[in-house]
């Protein structure tokens, strides 16, 4: 089943490439179907996933390149299943949201489906080599999606994204090779590596320095993943990529791609190199707090709505890191839940930014000349305002909506660790700042006297509402009762945490 979920978009891409160039609607429908089937299969995955088991499920395992012990080995466990579900859902929504893309429709949807396969592959792969292949496979469509369908500075943003991520990949490649050579028997099996954890006692000599192998691996991997998260100071590609990317790509970028960084850390740094992770605990917590606070401060200064949301992502990913650094059940579950919840709430925000951008073709909260870009559009777009309000409050962690529970779990978990308490106190400033920049933005765009330029704006179309509906439902339902998602992950996380107790 997992293979089908992963590769149906790729098949869809193949079909799209064969379709005639001038029939755009046929391309769109094909693309929609190719994302609907994985979504439906995702429901099956959700239903059948065994909540009690910590092991990988739906495993498919075929030798691929036996000479190097490389396998086609996929499966999902608690760490990844929620991410797979999030990915299939967001991709489905994104295809709906991309309906109005009109130039080079064929290429756009082909690239998008390739991207979906890449993302799903990363979350399903249990073989490091396969993981790396998918990881790189994502890069290419992303580059083109930003570089061709993006905004004004799209080429700069695309190249920046590409080079930056590639730099991370190179570090990961080093670890990939290193892990192969230093493990016995040589192999890339992540489950095997996590159970034997062979690197803790080994050392490596670099330029005459004798270094502990696991820490070297840890740092290399960490930087590789940190670029993706992104963790300060490796974050500056993100605002660029977001601002220039088309709406759907921003949604996927913030909703799914960022989570790959933290997912990768849990899968590799935490599971395979737990000793080094413990060693770096304080360091993680400090970076987490920097992310939270720094992202929030920068968000408040932004004049471009999309850039504000981009910096808010940086801030919110800080909570994930803080939860992870706590090594407690509440903290790590909260972190993974936050990955999911941030995926839904930030996807809502980006979709909503896209809605307004489609209408007025700018996103200025405050224009470069100092005048207001919008103002009082609640009067003409009440539904839009309502949904934006929901997204804003979900994002700032209002209780009753999904963001709160994950943040609360993160803080509860981290605060129960004495040495992290001070970071929790500083990090809690992010709760105030988060409310400040989001509500201030909300006030300047939606409330107050109606700006003359916005008088004729039509409210959201049914297609736009349809795209947002599932996310609205998720944000509310998981805010009231988060167990459906927590149940998926808690067993695996509990097992992972045995390494840290």
């Amino acid at each position: 089943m997992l293979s089908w979920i992963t590769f149906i978009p790729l098949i869809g891409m193949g079909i799209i490439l064969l379709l005639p160039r001038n029939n755009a609607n046929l391309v769109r429908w094909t693309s929609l179907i190719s994302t609907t089937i994985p979504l439906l299969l995702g429901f099956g995955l959700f239903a059948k996933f065994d909540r009690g088991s910590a092991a990988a499920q739906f495993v498919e395992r075929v030798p691929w390149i036996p000479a190097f012990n490389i396998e086609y080995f996929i499966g999902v466990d608690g760490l990844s299943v929620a991410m797979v579900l999030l990915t299939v859902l967001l991709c489905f929504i994104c295809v709906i949201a991309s309906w109005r893309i009109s130039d080079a429709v064929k290429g756009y949807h082909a690239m998008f489906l390739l991207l979906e396969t890449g993302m799903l592959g990363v979350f399903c792969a249990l073989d490091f080599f396969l993981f790396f292949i998918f990881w790189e496979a994502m890069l290419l469509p992303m580059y083109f999606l930003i570089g061709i369908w993006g905004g004004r500075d799209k080429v700069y943003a695309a190249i920046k994204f590409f080079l930056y991520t590639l730099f991370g990949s190179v570090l990961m490649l080093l670890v990939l090779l290193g892990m192969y050579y230093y493990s016995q028997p040589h192999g890339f099996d992540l489950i095997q590596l996590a159970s034997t954890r062979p690197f803790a006692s080994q050392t490596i000599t670099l330029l005459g320095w004798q270094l502990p192998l696991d820490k070297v691996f840890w740092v290399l991997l960490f930087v590789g993943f940190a670029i993706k998260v992104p963790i300060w100071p490796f974050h500056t590609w993100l605002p660029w990529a977001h601002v220039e990317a088309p709406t759907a790509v921003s949604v996927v970028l913030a909703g799914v791609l960022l989570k790959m960084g933290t997912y990768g850390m849990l899968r590799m740094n935490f599971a395979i190199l737990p000793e080094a992770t413990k060693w770096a605990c304080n360091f993680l917590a400090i970076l987490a707090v920097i992310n939270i606070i720094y992202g929030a401060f920068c968000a408040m200064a932004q004049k471009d709505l999309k850039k504000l949301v981009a910096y808010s992502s940086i801030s919110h990913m800080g909570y994930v890191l803080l939860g992870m650094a706590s090594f407690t059940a509440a903290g790590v579950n909260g972190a993974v839940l936050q990955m999911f919840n941030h995926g839904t709430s930030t996807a809502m925000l980006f979709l909503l930014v896209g809605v307004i951008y489609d209408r007025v073709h700018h996103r200025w909260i405050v224009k470069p000349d100092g005048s207001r870009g919008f103002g009082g559009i609640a009067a003409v777009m009440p539904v839009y305002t309502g949904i934006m309000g929901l997204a804003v409050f979900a994002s700032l962690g209002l209780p009753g909506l999904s963001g709160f529970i994950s943040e609360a779990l993160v803080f509860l978990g981290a605060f129960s660790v004495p040495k992290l308490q001070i970071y929790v106190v500083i990090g809690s400033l992010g709760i105030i700042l988060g409310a400040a920049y989001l509500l201030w933005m909300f006030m300047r765009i939606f409330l107050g006297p109606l700006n003359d330029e916005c008088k004729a704006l039509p409210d959201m179309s049914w297609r736009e509402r349809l795209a947002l509906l599932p996310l609205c439902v998720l944000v509310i339902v998981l805010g009231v009762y988060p167990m459906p998602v927590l149940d998926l992950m808690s067993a695996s996380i509990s097992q992972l945490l045995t390494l840290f107790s």
Partner: protein
Amino acid sequence: MAQTCLWIVCLPILAFVIQVFFGKRLPRQGDWVSLAAIGFSLLLAIPIFGRLLSEGHVFDTLSFSWLSLPQTAGAFQIIIGVLVNNFTAIMLMMVTLCAGLIHLFSVGYMHGEDRYHLFFAYISLFSAAMLGLVVSDNLLTFFIFWELMGLCSYLLIGFYYKKPEAIAASLKAFMTTRIGDVGLFLGLCGLYAVFGTSQFESIYAAVASGAAESKTLLGMPALTFIGFMVLMGAIGKSAQFPLHVWLPDAMEGPTPVSALIHAATMVAAGVFLLIRMFPVLEASHTVLVYVAYVGAVTAFLAALLAIVQVDIKKVLAYSTISQLGYMVMGVGVGAFAAAFLHLITHACFKACLFLCSGSVIHSVHTQDMREMGGLKSKMPWTFACMLIATLSISGLPFFSGFVSKDRVLAGALAYGMEHTGHWLIPLLGFAAAGITAFYMFRLIYMTFFGSARDEHKHHHAHEQPIVMVLPLVVLATLSFAVWFSGPTGVDAFDQVFSVHWYEHAVAGVEKEMALPAPVEHHEGIHHVAHSLALIFSLVLAGAGIFFSSLVYLKGWISPVKLKSFFSPIHTLLWNKYYFDHLYINIIIQKGLLGWNRFLAAFDDWVIDRILVDGWSRIVLFIKSIVGLFDDLVIDRMLVDGSAGMTAMGGWAVRRIQTGKVQHYLIASLAALGFGLFYLIGMR
């Protein structure tokens, strides 16, 4: 009973959902949905309260696991549920009654407003949140509902969303209270870290057993940390100094909202929190005195501010802050039963005052008291109700405010007599009592007495329809003391509201909270303090009313002269002690926004352009050097150089390629000859 409580909370939530999605299409925009929901909640709350009165005690719990995560040692669980005790029963009664009456009033007040259905949706959600908070048996759901009330407050203050002042006020309210909320949330984290639970019952037991004595959080005793964080939450929500700035601005909301949220219920949640957490505060030994000072300072400073206000709602707003200060002070000096009673009585008379002011505003279409005057005859019902509530808040005998305020002040005085170093606490409390009487009667005189200062507005003034007057009358009736202290001499009445019903209720709760018994020798002080406080507060209230009459009724002392005499103080008060200036102009505009801009520029220039793009420049530089090397050394010298050699060789070779067969033949023969010679020579 606990089941019933769930229904009490759920009905308004249901009304909220219906109103948001279908309200616009329902007849009368669905105001009856919200009214019915709160009405049924009231009907469900009455039996619980009745049981408290008849049996003297109610207790029931209901809990279920909301969230459970396996971990190596046991499981991380969050258990939530309902706790019905005597305080819950009283609060339920008070909240449903006040909210119900205010719903009714709103039908008249909000008639014909834009987004009428949403208004009712929001106040339904608000009622649900407040009720949810009241019945919560743990601090987590308490906090959840607490925040939801913050949301409702935000939505309702900014209800007139086209008005810049209103939206600014809503943002200010949400942000200011959120600062306190973060504190409360950290306190919650602390509770989980120390006790592993946030259920009140478990915390009471754990505190009583002394289990937390040796634990520390952030280097201070755990209970002290939690206590301060809880206090911070209460300061934000109950608008205590220095986070009081949001409440006066919150008056931008429609008046029923001011009555419901910013006077009667939500702001009292902070005090209710302190009461629920009282055992923790008490056990920490250090926090309570800070609580008392916060309350006393607030009560005094806010009362002073109320004197100079000219907006009728602003007077009431500062009065609310001041009265909340009393409650907080009451908790701080250990008289939490008195504080709770004041919370209840205050809710009734303050809701009444606000609704009366709403009635006046609705009638004369201004909030400025300088444009009112002489409304006594035009609006007799409103005037009578407001007068009763004013007498109550001023603390005159036979009114509810007397009963409760006197107890708070007695508690403060006893505290001051016991700990003579803290004499300032009762002093501020008594001073505030006198000032309260002064400014409240100033309000009454300016609004209802004298001659009309704006003929046009006075001319159009009229009494309100029955849906608006009825709530006033009911609330005014509740402002009499008999409900809380009795006896009336009427048997049927006294049997229901027996003289000591409140004492019994408090005694029951104290037992649940497992508080240490008070030390015996304090009893004497309490007795003396009580008599003294009674005399002081009566004298001060009388003096306040007397001076107010001199200035604003008789005009023997000119307010203008008074103002110029106290000119520096007046300026200070008029600028609200410059708190807003400090917060908005200095901390936010100069500090926060400047810092944000600096960080954003740092991010853009230092990190992005220098550190990140800088690499590309370095690479480009290396590239150009390498390129130059490639061009000059490798290409020109080595590659092209070798090409030159080849060319030379080519030239030489070309010379012999003449194209004539004879030359080739000679050359071949020569080559053959050489070859043969060579081969032979080798041998």
